[in-house]
């Protein structure tokens, strides 16, 4: 009986492999956030790609709505940031869509955060700290080096799911890496004047960007992660801003600007909305133009 069960397991595995490799001519990709849809577009240009959210939507709070269940039902691969960013809706989509292919990272589920070292990991998490992620900050797409690591890991995943097209995926990665590395050098040059600049920002959305550029976020509009700005907290930021070393107040494209404007008016600091992802402003059409736009907007602030 023991032998039989092994044989059955092996043949099931073989069957699963056959399905995974042969059945889909065109890979169907479900991206949790637009930055991963854009990355998939670079690495698997022939795939059918759907982004569950836009740069105007907070990915912490997404409804597990019918259209997303329907899209996930058909997906071969789901690409998400991970580090619990989507914990409020992705498990429900998986449960409701009954698609075994995207259940686990062994198969067609890919978490970007698992392939890099996230910033700000926490040994222990308590709700009194706000809505924090023990696995670190999930907004990692604003670190170009880390994103390149994610691109490499994603290509391995694409090849695993669609081995027949390995050549195409390898070529796409080589092409992307080459263009990306050239761009990184350009951006580094461009962002040099931003080094050491201090900002107040909403949430830790741009943690990786500031870390990479060498900027410092000296205040958070949120009193605690996930808790909206309160008057008393904004007042404390006002006294921090009066020290005179803060360049601007930064808000992401899906965040409420009211708290920022309240503080901006009282401190004479400019308020700048940055695109959180591709589609977050008119200039951000892909990952390259997103980075260019964000760095350009920050530079214009530093020149004021």
């Amino acid at each position: 009986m023991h032998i039989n069960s092994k044989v059955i397991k092996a043949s099931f595995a073989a069957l699963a492999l056959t399905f995974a490799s042969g059945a889909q001519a065109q890979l169907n990709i479900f991206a949790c956030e637009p930055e991963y849809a854009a990355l998939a577009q670079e690495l698997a240009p022939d795939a059918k790609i759907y982004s569950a959210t836009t740069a105007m939507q907070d990915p912490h709070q997404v409804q597990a709505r019918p259209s997303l269940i329907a899209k996930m039902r058909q997906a071969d691969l789901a690409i998400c940031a991970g580090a619990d960013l989507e914990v409020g809706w992705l498990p429900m989509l998986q449960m409701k869509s009954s698609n075994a292919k995207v259940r686990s990272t062994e198969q067609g589920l890919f978490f970007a955060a698992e392939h890099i070292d996230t910033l700000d990991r926490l040994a222990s998490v308590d709700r009194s700290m706000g809505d924090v992620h023990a696995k670190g900050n999930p907004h990692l797409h604003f670190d170009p080096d880390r994103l390149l690591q994610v691109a490499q890991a994603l290509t391995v995943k694409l090849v695993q799911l669609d081995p027949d097209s390995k050549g195409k995926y390898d070529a796409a990665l080589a092409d992307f890496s080459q263009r990306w590395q050239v761009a990184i050098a350009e951006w580094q040059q461009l962002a040099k004047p931003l080094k050491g600049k201090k900002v107040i920002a909403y949430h830790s959305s741009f943690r990786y960007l500031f870390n990479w550029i060498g900027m410092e976020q000296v205040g958070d509009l949120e009193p605690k992660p996930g808790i909206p700005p309160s008057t008393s907290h904004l007042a404390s930021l006002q006294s921090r801003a009066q020290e005179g070393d803060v360049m601007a107040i930064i808000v992401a494209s899906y965040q409420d600007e009211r708290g920022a404007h309240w503080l901006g008016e009282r401190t004479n600091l400019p308020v700048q909305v940055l695109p959180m992802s591709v589609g977050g402003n008119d200039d951000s059409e892909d990952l390259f133009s997103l980075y260019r736009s964000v760095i350009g907007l920050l530079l214009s602030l530093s020149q004021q």
Partner: protein
Amino acid sequence: MTRLNTRISAVAAACALVSHVSFAEDSSLTNPAISAVLDGYYQNTERPMAEREEGFGLGHTEVAISANIDDMFYGKLTAVLEVHEGETELGLEEAFIQTTAMPAGFSVRAGRFLSDVGYLNNQHVHTDAFSDRPAAYRAFLGSHYFDDGVRLDYVAPTDLFWAMGIEAFKGDSMRAEDEHGERDFTNLGVYTAYTKIGGDIGVSSSWQVGLSYLRNENGRLTAHEEHGIEPAADDGHDHDHAHAAKYTGENTYVADFVYKWAPNGNYKYQHLTVSGEYFKVTDFAPLDEHDDGHLHGNEHEPDDQTGWYLSSVYQISPNWSAGLRYGQVNTQELHDDHFDSQKLKETEVSLAWHHSHFSTVRLQYTNQQGTNFDGFTDDNIITLQYVMTLGAHGAHQF
């Protein structure tokens, strides 16, 4: 043997290659998702057929544990502590397993779980925007219908969301009132079938509509017997019926819809939810035993029992939300050999303060207008309630 050995080593090699596997829920044997809901309230009086009593009280205090059991099964256990007349009762609201790896969009759920009929029924009560379920739910489903049974669900591979399913349940809590305790009820009492369709309108709006049918083999009232003892008019404190449907019938039809809107589809700050359901319960009049399956006294055949509600909840800011709900239910109460028509109308306003995603304090006002309803006329109800969740916070349904 050699073939077997190679297979084993292949498995071992595969295990070695896979450094770690994670599921979205990320709860494993050592780390299942454990959560608790605390619900306490003060209420100046009671709503008919509702679980909350007058004065200070605890609502649904629940503890839930869930995790992927392995790569094929997911399991969840929800224990509910309720206090009725000073006694604490432990109930199991959910104890189910669900397949996660069936092909072609199928899934099976077995054990004790919330039926997928209607819109609200499969949602946990602590996610509601009002302190009690609409009157139609309280009358026809015992607030929320969970039971022991099995479900087969299918999701179609279409861009328009289309799901359908069938369920079979024991149906104990859906049995018609049996005043003498002599009736021979069917053990497999309830069957349901449902379908749901949904999608988006642009980036800001989403919708879902559903149709459900519930067949209740034990839903028809027991034929009246001479010299039968009328049950007391007030059944609100009946222990055995804490979760039982008060008004049943053999056939229940439910139509539901929900529409949600948020600016740019961003639910963080403002969003609107409009939902409504319509219930129709038929075939509840006892059959005349002397007349082989014909309704007795055709001229007295009662109207179908119906109920509906329309609810609108607006989140003004992450800290505040307000809701308005109107609902009514028309039921038929059997008295001796005839039915008395009853009506209950509820107009409700709620205002909730949310310090975070996990804590809610709600003030609700309900105006009830009853016609012959359990001897109840009209009343104004004020409820002050908190609902807070601890621990792992599961994902919400649409």
